[in-house]
């Protein structure tokens, strides 16, 4: 049976994303694994000169065959896949999946950042956002991507010097909770107990401020 597995791709920079897999468009069917990334590589479609946005690796009788297609050619390719099979045929399912995915992606692609006007599609093709507000405008799409790249979606590092005192304390709380989690993971219960006390003190301090 034919199998398609994913793949490859070079968003901003190949190495940075080497381990990156996006879940929001991922799907699986019994015979098929197909992943899609939100930023296009610089690779061109193997059939025309448009940028390829779908990367399919077919495993056929032990041979590996990689296809890099733009959306139009991908649809064309998939509609030419042998027809007339039962609807529960994995290949049919695969085709349907890809079609749905292309449709979803089309909607997302058209959305744009109200501040700088960049569309999600532009971001996908160049790998760079347009302005700080893009992180909010594309939050739903970016969070899963960030999770895949970094494994986390909460910053715990440096805070700007000029940050207001209130957000400084909130941030301290986030950091402490983060450290508590690591301490529990590492089974350092003594440290965990200490951290829990610190968190409680800070939480009640913040709570009292809120009541004023």
């Amino acid at each position, binding site marked *: 049976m034919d199998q398609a597995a994913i793949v490859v791709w070079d*968003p*901003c*920079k190949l*190495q*940075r*994303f*080497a*381990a990156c897999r996006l879940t929001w468009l991922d799907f699986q069917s019994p015979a098929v694994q197909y992943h899609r990334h939100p930023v296009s590589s610089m690779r061109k479609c193997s059939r025309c000169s448009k940028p390829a946005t779908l990367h399919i690796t077919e495993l056929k009788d032990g041979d590996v065959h990689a296809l890099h297609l733009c959306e139009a050619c991908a649809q064309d390719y998939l509609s030419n896949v042998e027809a007339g099979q039962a609807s529960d045929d994995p290949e049919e399912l695969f085709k349907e999946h890809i079609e749905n995915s292309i449709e979803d992606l089309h909607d997302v692609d058209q959305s744009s950042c109200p*501040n*700088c*006007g*960049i569309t999600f599609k532009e971001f996908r093709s*160049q*790998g*760079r*956002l*347009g*302005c*700080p507000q*893009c*992180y909010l405008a594309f939050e739903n799409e*970016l969070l899963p*991507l*960030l999770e895949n*790249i*970094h*494994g*986390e*979606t*909460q*910053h*715990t*590092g*440096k*805070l*700007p*010097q*000029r*940050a207001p005192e209130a*957000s400084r304390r*909130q*941030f301290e709380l*986030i*950091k402490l909770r983060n450290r508590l989690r690591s301490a529990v993971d590492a089974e350092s219960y003594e440290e965990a107990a200490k951290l829990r006390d610190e968190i409680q003190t800070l939480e009640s301090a913040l709570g009292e401020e809120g009541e004023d």
Partner: protein
Amino acid sequence: MDLKSLTQTSGEWLRGTGPESDIVVSSRIRLARNLAQFPFLSRADDRVRTETEELLQGPISSLPIKGKVTYFDVNALEALDRQFLVERQLISRELAESHGSRGVGVGPEENISLMINEEDHLRLQVLRSGLALDDCWEEINRIDDALEEQVAFAFSEQLGYLTACPTNVGTGIRVSAMLHLPALALTKEIQKVFQAMQKMRLAVRGLYGEGSQAMGDFYQFSNQVTLGPSEQQLIDKLKEVIDGIIKYERRVRDELVVKNRQRLHDQVARAHGILSSAQTITSEETMHLLSSVRMGINLGLVDGLEIPTVNELFIQTQPAHLQKLRNEKLESSERNVARAAYIRKRLGDSSHEHN
């Protein structure tokens, strides 16, 4: 400091001192920052680019550091001069090759480089000779604090410092160390290192960063994750990994010396011999041979030659450096002749010093 005077010197980070400097050539930390009130560079027109450059130039020239920051207007530089700065690791290829208002502030002894309008509005970088990541962080953090007193960087409480590419968001930090690993490369053990790095989400690159080949057995190790862990956690993790690689390289070197001392000595002596007498030599062959000689010095197989000289030769024999030294444009074949002559002179000089 001007470009001409730079040709006569070399970066402090090449002096070949500092902890573990037989293996760790240099340590580097960079931070990516963007001005909160402007679009990122992909959406910045000429007016915005000029504004961000002007706005940042002031603060970077009055930093709390010893010595003065010299600013180079990269947009006004000729291609050769831009290449020269790339070879010295003061600017990235991306900054050299892009267009419009952009520049770099260089600190005394070339330990600090502040690129304006690269992928982000500001890319701060601090370099040190040897393994000195904590020193790098201490200094770059201080510079970043000082800049934040004068400008507002784009920041979100959830996502940290906001960067043009989502791969840098959070801390915006890249912690890296350049290692010379000839023994691991020679025995192909380096492949195991690569595999281990991939699992730990650490990147391995060549001498000139992304996309460059590992010339002269130099490898740059750096973090890929920037969001989640704190700066200190990322630094500590890289330090731990680097320590392991250093031990690995030393062990393999020792084994090579024990098992194959004569062959190794022969290889090093031949490399030294070719470098000392060749009449024409490519950049690639130079890097390859210098790598052998560098390892030979560290193993006590070469007399009368010092690590800083070899470190400098890696940089000074590159195309733009040769042309700046000769003060003329040279074709590839002419460069090969000039390179061979320059190496003969440097190796000759240094052996006289020791005789």
